[in-house]
């Protein structure tokens, strides 16, 4: 009962405290449910109270988080305004300089993020079976990711480079490499990427990823590699 009293005391403090306490009450009552089990109605009340209180609590917590997020820019603009205040009397253009550099920083950061994403994009190859140019399920999954990225970045074009392992003749492998590049191109086109953003080239067996002559190297060499073009 002491607990309940405390809750009474906290009732008017603020919504968060109230709901939190109510939540704990719900927990306690649930823990002691065996005593009340016989009464179904009481049970229903407990459950309802539990649900509502937790909803209140989460809502208030979420509100608090949003609040803290919102305050951050406030402090930044506050700093900006300090600048503004000190420089305002002498030179009004210094204010714009501060704002530009900030925008620049953000642009740079954004650029770095895109560059990172591009590097990840380019590092992911699509691999093929021996003397085959059809796309495996794994290859299709990778190409779907690539299509999504291309859709998010409409200013980027793509060069698809078809490659083969070192076995077989140069000419046949050049044609096979072209088929591998074309297969990826067609798949991306089917996913809505326009043809003029998708260039292809075949290097046949001229650009080996791994020059070793063994099955592992061969499977690494039978690939489409990708280069993003701005």
């Amino acid at each position: 009962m002491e607990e309940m009293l405390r809750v009474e005391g906290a009732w008017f403090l603020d919504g968060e405290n109230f709901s939190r306490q109510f939540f704990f009450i719900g927990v306690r009552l649930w823990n002691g449910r065996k005593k009340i089990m016989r009464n179904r109605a009481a049970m229903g009340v407990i459950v309802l109270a539990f649900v509502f209180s937790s909803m209140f609590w989460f809502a208030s917590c979420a509100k608090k988080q949003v609040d803290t997020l919102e305050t951050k820019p406030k402090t930044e603009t506050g700093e900006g305004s300090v600048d503004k205040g000190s420089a305002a009397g002498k030179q009004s253009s210094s204010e714009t300089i501060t704002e530009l550099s900030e925008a620049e920083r953000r642009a740079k950061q954004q650029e770095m993020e895109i560059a990172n994403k591009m590097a990840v994009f380019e590092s992911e190859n699509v691999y093929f079976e021996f003397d085959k140019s059809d796309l495996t399920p794994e290859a299709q999954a990778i190409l779907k990711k690539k299509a999504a990225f291309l859709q998010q970045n409409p200013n980027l074009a793509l060069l698809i480079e078809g490659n083969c392992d070192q076995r077989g003749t140069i000419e046949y492998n050049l044609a096979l490499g072209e088929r591998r590049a074309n297969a990826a191109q067609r798949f991306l086109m089917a996913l809505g990427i326009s043809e003029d953003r998708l260039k292809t080239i075949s290097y046949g067996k001229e650009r080996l990823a791994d020059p070793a002559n063994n099955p592992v190297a061969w499977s690494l060499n039978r690939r489409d590699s990708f280069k993003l073009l701005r």
Partner: protein
Amino acid sequence: MFRVNPGFLFSHKKALLYFTGIVSFLIFCFPGLSSGRIYIDINAPSIPKFKIAIPDFKRIGGDSGHPELGNELLKVMSNDLELSGYFSPIEKGAFLEEKDAPLTGDKINFKDWSVIGAELLLKVGYSCMGSRLQVELRLYDVFWGKQILGKRALGDIAGYRHLIHKLSDEIILKLTNYNGISLTKLAYVGDGTGQKEIYTCDYDGYNIQAVTSDKSIAMLPRWSPDGKRLAYNSYKQGGAELYLKDMVSGVTKRLSRRSGLNIGAGWSPGGEELALTLSDQGNSDIYVISLEGQILKRLTDHWSIDVSPSYSPDGKKLAFVSNRSGSPQVYILTIEDGKVERLTFEGKYNTSPCWSSLNRIAYTSMNENGSFDICTIDPNGGAVRVLTGDGWNDEDPRWSPDGRYIAFSSNRTGSYHIYIMNLSGQNQSRITFQKGNQTSPSWAPG
């Protein structure tokens, strides 16, 4: 034919054989009758090697410049004779004759040579006069003790290899009645600089010259039948585009730059047209273009990969590679009606056909162990022969202009180098020794 078995004359089994023996004996006895004799029947299925003795070349007069030249001349000529596949030179250690022995026939003690097994004796003298070189050559039939061939050649010392090659070809011509290959040239791809570039060299691997310095990927060099032009591919402007270099003027022009592939040019026998693979219509098919780059004819129109065209000697057909049956195989296309027939059925991977002037087709075949061998086949699918089978990759067969030798690339030393062999696969000899890999040979006449 050359070796007469004395026991033959005493054979009483068949009158006909006896008669033949007498006739051949008479032919050998009368020089007038034997003057046009062919010593080596190079059209025979297997050609026995002649044992030839080549003593040191002898300086006969002139000035005393270039002291090492005699050895150099000897090396070039005995290498020519060895590469021909018709000779096996006798080790010098076995020679009985003294060093200052005479060069001319009536003073030579032929018994000294026959006793060590020599069938032919080659005696060469030379003299230097300033920048000029004179070489005198006499070839003797040791058994009969008579001169078969005598030649005097005059040229620049600087061009001594070419002069000796000319004399080597005279020897081959005399003994076989056919021109040799000593003056022919090869083009190939080398990656010694870290980039694939095209080079040319004499057929024996000497006199290397760079054709490209594109610092990109240059490949698939193809000599015109007259050896005056070289078609090749280079990525120097982005894609696999076709170039044509005039080897006389040194001028290079871009011949085909259609989007996609412009690869694997095969010269028509007359050298006026090129068959090649284009893919700008979305699929690799074979076309014929002029030397100005215009499309003259489309030869294949099939969803499959069609590459590597090689003309028949009469120019009426093409061998090419297609995977229309599911795996790459060699097919024959009749140009007039576009009819296509499959040529190879053994194995899952048969590529790079090359049609010889003697109407044989060489190609590369993947064997059961996954390595590649050179094979030859008749255009009607008969007489398949596997010429290499060393467990390494032997690829890119290209015929010599006379159709009697095949240049190919092999990684049998660990990296790829160019080799030549005769059409039966015998006498496989390594020709290039540069660092890196040498691949994709093409053979031009001298």
